[in-house]
């Protein structure tokens, strides 16, 4: 209690002003007077009495100091004094302060912003309970990287892998339309087994989640909303639980909202029990080994290790392939992987993010090096001041504390400004991260991120304080002796400065090389020909029937949908500016996940050769003209290719080359094939090839075109059809009138992906562009900072050598020679940095190989260009101080020294 009281009193004492000092002085004075009076009373002479009293007092000043220490908290007062002093000295050199703070802010800001993304996407533990025990199972083959599992496969894995004893959560991705007047929306849904949430370790934020009693036929359909969809669609309405909504043609009860959590491989809006899809309960689904529609996440059994799980799953999988050879075409190389769920969520982002993190850290290093150099130079200029302070009694510890306080102020100011930069940058980065990771929603500048920035600034402050070398204790005398002179800062210090400059140049070159490669990647991507002849095309998808409805083949609904599509097509065609409107699915430049093995008449695959696959796409007679897809051979579809007419197809060039290399495919027959067709509305009947069209970049601008078979729109169920509207002028201007027509014809249908071809193309390029822009700005920033560093160090060297230069010039060296001397001094540093940087750049380029497109990792043009640019900037940076050296007047230079 009394300690608390004393502490409070002392804190209060911190703020006691001059009044307390005056009172103290009066008190001590009174003591002295009384003692003097007493001495006089004892018979001393007044002078002597006072002298004796003073002697006994032990010194009034010392006493006052001791009391003051007791009054407040001396170390805080020392600290505030240091900070006040540091502030004053920084205010005296505003240019230095501004440059340092700004440089640090850029470095810390970039690093902090990217750290916040790296943390959220890669490092932070999953929100799932014991998320580190979750593993993702992935089946893939040469044609597809995610093919999912079939129910019999899941059954085998469950039986044969006891290490996955924590349970196997299954879900299959599906789409459904949430009805609701104008606002009908297609949802990405997951059909889940009752154990799903238990295995995943997810809790509801509202209501309840599904449980085993929701499994099987004959139970009421229920729906759990993901947090994201609940917020975006229902505005976080907490009365949603228990509400009945219409999904497709079912009435479904919303039972709860789950906590925010990422899904993989694709986003999910809501989760349903299986009963909503009769197909999922049907025998085809349950018995078909090739009917792979299920994603798997398993929880490791309590004692099981990742390695155990891998070997068990591999053993089960080998047995499956042996027992059911028909389901695993040997040529396609079916394989299975077991990957930690957290890792799989970050896998697409990992390389890009670490690349950006590396770039940001490089900028950080360069800016720190620059600040260190500035501090070194300033330290030399301040030696005089420090010597004076030392002479006045400031101990070494005190000087160190002063420097630390000053550096702390600088780095903290830098960190503060840096965090502001990061706050702005994070928004940009979220847009980037959304393309790569389902965890982008978790990105935020939170306490950990702020702590990161703070720690960064503390470490920097300490490093900077170490760089500024103070004399060793006891060598002040030599300092005093040299104190009057301008000093060169010693050999050690100069070497350090030079090393820092070399590092700066090298790191800048690495960054610029990376930036150059990414920029060239972006340019080659934008130059990729989409396969379409024009970009003034508007596309919109209107899924009148979902895959679910199409799969159960409701002939009546299909006929109605086709009538509606035709009505939309003909009405939009009459809009002014519209030249032609096509119908089809999916839209050009959109990837399709519906693809099956194909066979062709007269084509046999060599043993071990992968089966050919072709995407399922539909097109009406106008589709290719509207999309601007060139016809290479044969004919387009015609009005005569009716539902009851002969089965015909148009194939793309990629498929033609795959199935009929060196032959004319027109008139030949091809068909989809494979066991899995049984589960789809697509027949394996032979179809006659009537035309060949050019490839289009549907899977992204950097993807190899896949084989495609186009079926007449009239000859296949109309699942997720869309309109391709070609115009003579501005495609974007058609959005409003076209949407109005669609709304009138199908008021309840969702309208999706209303984009011009130019926009779709841009979406494919934009993550790369952002990537390239970020690394480029880092690179340019680094180059500027490095140039300032080179110029600064040389300028400093010149001013330190003024005396020497003066002597040389008075001995007959001309100014040109002096200029060359300084240029050479800087040139060596820049050249050294260049060599190191190009070497580092080669290494970095190898690491980022997979992010590049259309440019070799060791692209000579990029590297030569970067080296030349850096050399030019470096020379310019050297030239400025060199000029100054050449203008030194020898007479003045010698006199000053």
């Amino acid at each position, binding site marked *: 209690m*009394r300690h608390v*009281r*004393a502490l409070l*009193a*002392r804190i209060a*004492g911190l703020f006691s002003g001059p009044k307390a000092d005056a*009172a*103290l002085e*009066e*008190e*001590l004075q*009174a*003591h002295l*007077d*009384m*003692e003097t*009076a*007493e001495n006089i009373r004892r018979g001393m002479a007044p002078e002597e009495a006072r002298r004796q009293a003073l002697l*006994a*007092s*032990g*010194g*009034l000043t*010392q*006493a006052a*100091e*001791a*009391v003051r*220490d*007791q*009054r407040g908290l001396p170390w805080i007062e020392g600290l505030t004094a240091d900070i006040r002093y540091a502030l004053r000295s920084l205010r005296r050199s505003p240019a230095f302060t501004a440059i340092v703070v700004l440089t640090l802010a850029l470095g810390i800001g970039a690093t902090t912003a990217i750290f916040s993304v790296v943390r959220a996407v890669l490092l932070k533990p999953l929100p799932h309970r014991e998320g580190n025990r979750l593993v993702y199972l992935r089946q893939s083959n040469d044609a597809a990287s995610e093919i999912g599992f079939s129910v019999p496969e899941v059954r085998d894995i469950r039986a044969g892998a006891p290490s996955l004893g924590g349970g196997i959560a299954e879900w299959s991705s599906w789409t459904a339309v949430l009805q609701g007047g104008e606002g009908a929306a297609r949802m990405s849904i997951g059909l889940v087994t009752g154990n799903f949430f238990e295995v995943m370790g997810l809790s509801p934020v509202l209501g309840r989640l599904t449980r085993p009693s929701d499994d099987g036929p004959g139970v009421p359909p229920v729906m759990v909303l993901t947090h994201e969809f609940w917020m975006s669609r229902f505005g976080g309405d907490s009365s949603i639980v228990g509400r009945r909504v219409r999904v497709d043609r079912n009435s479904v009860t919303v039972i709860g909202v789950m906590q925010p959590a990422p899904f993989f491989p694709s986003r999910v809006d809501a989760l349903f029990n299986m009963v909503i899809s009769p197909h999922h309960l049907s025998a085809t689904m349950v018995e078909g080994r090739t009917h792979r529609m299920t994603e798997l996440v398993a929880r490791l059994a309590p004692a099981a290790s990742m390695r155990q799980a891998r070997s068990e799953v591999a053993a089960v999988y080998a047995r499956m392939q042996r027992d059911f050879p028909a389901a695993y075409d040997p040529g396609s190389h079916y394989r299975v992987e077991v990957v930690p769920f957290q890792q799989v969520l970050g896998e697409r982002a990992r390389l890009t993010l670490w690349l950006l993190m590396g770039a940001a850290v490089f900028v950080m290093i360069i800016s720190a090096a620059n600040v260190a150099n500035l501090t070194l130079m300033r330290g030399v200029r301040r030696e005089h001041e420090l010597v004076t302070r030392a002479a006045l009694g400031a101990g070494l510890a005190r000087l160190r504390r002063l420097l630390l306080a000053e550096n702390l102020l600088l780095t903290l100011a830098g960190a503060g400004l840096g965090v502001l930069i990061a706050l702005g940058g994070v928004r940009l980065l979220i847009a980037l991260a959304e393309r790569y990771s389902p965890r982008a929603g978790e990105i935020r500048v939170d306490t950990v991120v702020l702590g990161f920035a703070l720690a960064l600034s503390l470490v920097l402050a300490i490093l900077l304080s170490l760089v500024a070398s103070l004399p060793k204790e006891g060598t002040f005398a030599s300092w005093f002796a040299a104190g009057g002179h301008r000093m060169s800062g010693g050999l050690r210090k100069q070497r350090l400065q030079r090393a820092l400059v070399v590092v700066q140049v090298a790191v800048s070159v690495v960054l610029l090389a990376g930036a150059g490669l990414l920029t060239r990647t972006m340019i080659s991507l934008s130059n990729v020909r989409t396969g379409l002849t024009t970009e003034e095309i508007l596309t919109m998808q209107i899924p009148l029937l979902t895959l679910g409805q199409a799969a159960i083949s409701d002939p009546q609904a299909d006929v109605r949908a086709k009538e509606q599509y035709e009505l939309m097509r003909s009405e939009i065609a009459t809009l002014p500016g519209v030249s032609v409107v096509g119908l089809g699915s999916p839209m050009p430049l959109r990837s399709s996940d519906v693809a099956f093995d194909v066979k062709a008449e007269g084509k046999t695959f060599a043993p071990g050769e992968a089966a050919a696959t072709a995407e399922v796409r539909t097109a009406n007679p106008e589709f290719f003209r509207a999309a601007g897809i060139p016809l290479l051979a044969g004919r387009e579809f015609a009005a005569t290719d009716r539902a009851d007419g002969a089965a015909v197809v148009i194939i793309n060039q990629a498929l033609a080359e795959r199935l009929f290399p060196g032959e004319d495919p027109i008139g030949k027959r091809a068909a989809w094939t494979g066991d899995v067709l049984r589960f789809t509305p697509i027949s394996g009947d032979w179809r006659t090839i009537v035309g060949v069209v050019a490839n289009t970049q549907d899977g992204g601008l950097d993807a190899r075109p896949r084989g495609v078979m186009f079926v007449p729109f009239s000859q296949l169920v109309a699942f997720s059809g869309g309109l391709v509207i070609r115009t003579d002028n501005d495609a974007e201007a058609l959005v409003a009138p076209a949407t109005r027509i669609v709304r009138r014809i199908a008021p309840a249908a969702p309208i999706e992906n209303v984009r011009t071809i130019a926009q779709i193309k841009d979406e494919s390029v934009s993550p790369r562009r952002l990537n390239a822009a970020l690394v480029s700005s880092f690179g340019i920033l680094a180059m500027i900072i490095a140039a300032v560093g080179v110029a600064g160090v040389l300028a400093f060297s010149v001013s330190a050598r003024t005396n020497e230069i003066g002597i040389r010039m008075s001995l007959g060296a001309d100014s040109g020679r002096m200029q060359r001397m300084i240029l050479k001094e800087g040139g060596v540093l820049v050249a050294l940095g260049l060599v190191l940087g190009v070497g580092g750049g080669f290494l970095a380029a190898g690491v980022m190989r997979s992010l590049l497109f259309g440019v070799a990792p060791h692209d000579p043009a990029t590297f030569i260009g970067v080296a030349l640019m850096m050399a030019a900037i470096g020379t310019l940076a050297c030239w400025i101080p060199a000029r100054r050296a050449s203008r030194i007047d020898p007479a003045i230079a010698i006199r000053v020294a």
Partner: protein
Amino acid sequence: MAGKLDIQQGTLALMVLKTLDVLGPLHGYGIARRIEETSRNRLSLNYGTLYPALLKLEQEGFITAEWRQSENNRRAKFYALSAAGRKRLAREAREWHQTADLIAAFLGRREAP
């Protein structure tokens, strides 16, 4: 200063409290005089020892301070024992007696030099 003893903070606090207990409110000079006299001049208090100790006692709430006129009509700061101070004095005096008895019994009695 040979022969004079250095004084420990805790001991000084106890002496101050006892002085104020015996003499009532007193200024710093009076306290110093009293302690020096009681110690038969074996202790000498310089200001740098005394005043921080007084301030500390004040901060801890064992004594209170007040500006008053001194006996010779000079303004001086008078310190007085608080209730908490009286309690502390009683407790510490008891503890000191016990310790002193114990040490004395342990070392055996010896005439003061």
